[in-house]
């Protein structure tokens, strides 16, 4: 675990909720903006806890919890401009929230109803990627397209775009991720590599993946890297804003290591008690990403108590809505799957679709 007073760690809000200065990074928003971020954090956590509960009740096949990583996701997600584009892993529920993806679309995937139904181009938020690290190359290629479209370095507001690749500490070992770093560096692509170092790749601590702090890897590839307190929504927002701006203006890629912690299991099928100590988890509870924002807002009297009650009520309603929506989800008609393989249907698959239809009808006949 990194030293909490590690000078390389960018922090703007301490775990106790005190604003601190940093020579290079500043959070520009006012207290209303911070209150808005707080609402995002609470609602994101609620989506997550609701999904975990729904999995326990058998409504979802599996759930990958983001508990503890809310600030890393909301801080970076809220730094994005509408024209920026995100390539997520399967745990970016908070970024999805910031991009306006209906949370039920995430839950559908984990229920096993489908594999992603949101329109990536409507939200500039790509499909969840389960194979570790693959999306970092996709993000880099997308950013190469952005370059070719002349959407970098024009200075026109709303035109220049950055691409963000989300990935975890485990993924940094993958060839794909290292290749993405190479491609982004040599093409000077407008991409931000956003690594949530949550300390654990299922059961393996970060020491199984690296001997140097991950952000330092960037130097070897030829672009800047920075480590930010991933549980500090203000610092994450500030650092991401700067990296996005660099990308948009044509200064190339950068790596952000959001130093955070996976408070829950890898997924609902995992049992972390087999491989990590509870005192580690307890120590990270003291750095909770929500508590410090709440403490700050109270300290400066930025909001009244009613604000907190309203946010909690909103979270409660969101949870209720999700519960109802999940329970109402119908299974897909398998026949439709045959038509989503190719743009131009092949006679073979069309024949299999008809075969499936006939077969299903015959089973229904028997059942009757």
């Amino acid at each position, binding site marked *: 675990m990194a030293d909490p007073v590690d000078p390389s760690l960018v922090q703007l809000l301490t775990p106790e909720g005190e604003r601190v200065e940093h020579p290079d990074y500043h959070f520009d928003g006012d207290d209303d903006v911070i209150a808005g971020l707080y609402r995002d954090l609470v609602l994101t956590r609620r989506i997550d806890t609701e999904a975990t509960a729904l999995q326990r009740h058998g409504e979802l*096949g*599996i759930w990958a919890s983001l508990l503890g990583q809310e600030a890393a996701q909301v801080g970076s997600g809220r730094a994005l401009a509408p024209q920026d584009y995100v390539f997520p892993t*399967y745990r970016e529920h908070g970024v999805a929230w910031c991009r306006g993806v209906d949370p039920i679309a995430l839950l559908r*995937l*984990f*229920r*096993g*109803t*489908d*594999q992603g139904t949101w329109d990536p181009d409507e939200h500039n938020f790509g499909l969840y990627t*389960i*194979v*570790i690290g693959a999306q970092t190359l996709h993000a880099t290629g997308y950013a190469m397209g952005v370059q070719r479209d002349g959407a970098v370095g024009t200075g026109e507001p709303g035109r220049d775009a950055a691409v963000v690749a989300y990935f975890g500490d*485990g*993924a940094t*070992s*993958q*060839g*794909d991720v290292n290749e993405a770093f190479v491609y982004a560096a040599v093409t000077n692509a407008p991409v931000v590599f956003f690594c949530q170092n949550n300390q654990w*790749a*299922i*059961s*393996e601590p970060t020491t*199984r*993946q690296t001997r140097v702090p991950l952000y330092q890897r960037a130097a070897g590839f030829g672009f800047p890297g920075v480590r930010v307190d991933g549980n500090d929504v203000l610092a994450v927002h500030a650092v991401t804003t700067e990296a996005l701006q660099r990308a948009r203006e044509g200064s190339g890629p950068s790596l952000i290591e959001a130093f955070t912690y996976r408070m829950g299991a890898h997924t609902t*099928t*995992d049992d972390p008690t*087999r*491989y990590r100590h509870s005192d580690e988890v307890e120590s990270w509870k003291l750095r909770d990403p929500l508590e410090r924002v709440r403490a700050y807002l109270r300290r400066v009297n930025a909001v009244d108590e009613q604000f907190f009650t309203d946010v909690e009520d909103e979270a409660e309603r969101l949870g209720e809505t999700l519960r109802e929506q999940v329970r109402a989800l119908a*299974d*897909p008609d*398998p026949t439709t*799957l*045959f038509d989503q*393989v190719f743009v131009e249907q092949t006679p*073979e*698959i069309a024949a*299999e679709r008809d*075969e*499936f239809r006939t*077969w*299903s009808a015959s*089973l229904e006949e028997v059942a009757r």
Partner: protein
Amino acid sequence: MSRTVTMTMAKALNAGLRAAMDRDSKVVLMGEDIGKLGGVFRITDGLQKDFGEDRVIDTPLAEAGILGTAVGLALRGYRPVVEIQFDGFVYPAYDQIVSQVAKYRYRSGGRLSMPLVVRIPFGGGIGAVEHHSESPEAQFAHTPGLKVVACSNPRDAYAMIQQAVASPDPVIFLEPKRLYHSTKAEIDLDATPPPLFSSRVVRPGSTATVLAYGPSVSVAMGAAEAGVEDGLDLEVIDLRTLSPLDMGPVHESVRKTGRAVVVHEAHRNLGLGAELAARISEECFYSLEAPVLRVGAYDIPYPPSRVEESYLPDLDQVLDAVDRSLAW
């Protein structure tokens, strides 16, 4: 006196790996989360504790790296047994498997060997998300230089994993993940198992031959039992080895029954069924009363789990294929 233990397939594989490690100090296990966690399916449970971190290696999260370094360890005289966490995650390592593992001996003019095992939990039916339910066996069986086997029950799992580790050639070892914890079997730890690359009649019969392997063996057996009511007497063969194929028992059976149905979870197009049908028609043409029929997955990627039951071959489809064969 022989020692008999009742175990699930997961425990049997664990016991088999333990025996292989006890027998040969050059056997090392490699994979993601196989140490303290014991693997996501607990197949290596307790082995790191007992054999140490040098012999049970929690690798970085990089499948190409797992296979590539296993090649190096094998060249240094070790016997790596690598675990790929899920079937769909083998592809980053596919290049190392196909271009290096499979060709190293050939490239060296037969001087070097590649005695490593790649364990892959395969198949569906566990309600998982994408990339966790695939059946990639044909891609390996199609690659010269690789041997491919699949176990279907705890007894075979216990023996076959040890035989695979002892094999001087690279073995892709496929484990039907949905059967890991489902049923127990009595295992005689001192029994002499049949050779690794051999198929076996698991239910004798006369009406038709049903060929299966891995998870589809239990489907075929279910069909055979259900078929009794309808007067069917199906012979079921557990192929066990997919490359090389052991066609002796298959040909013998088909010459007797005159009919063959192949069942697998993999896609029908260019699946094992295609090769089996070709070989049976080449060798048993005059014995056949009907073409060899295939029961397999539709040629679409694995579906979302809520509808996987309608995608996976089931006993109704097997019996339907048998009916079609009989009606030919």
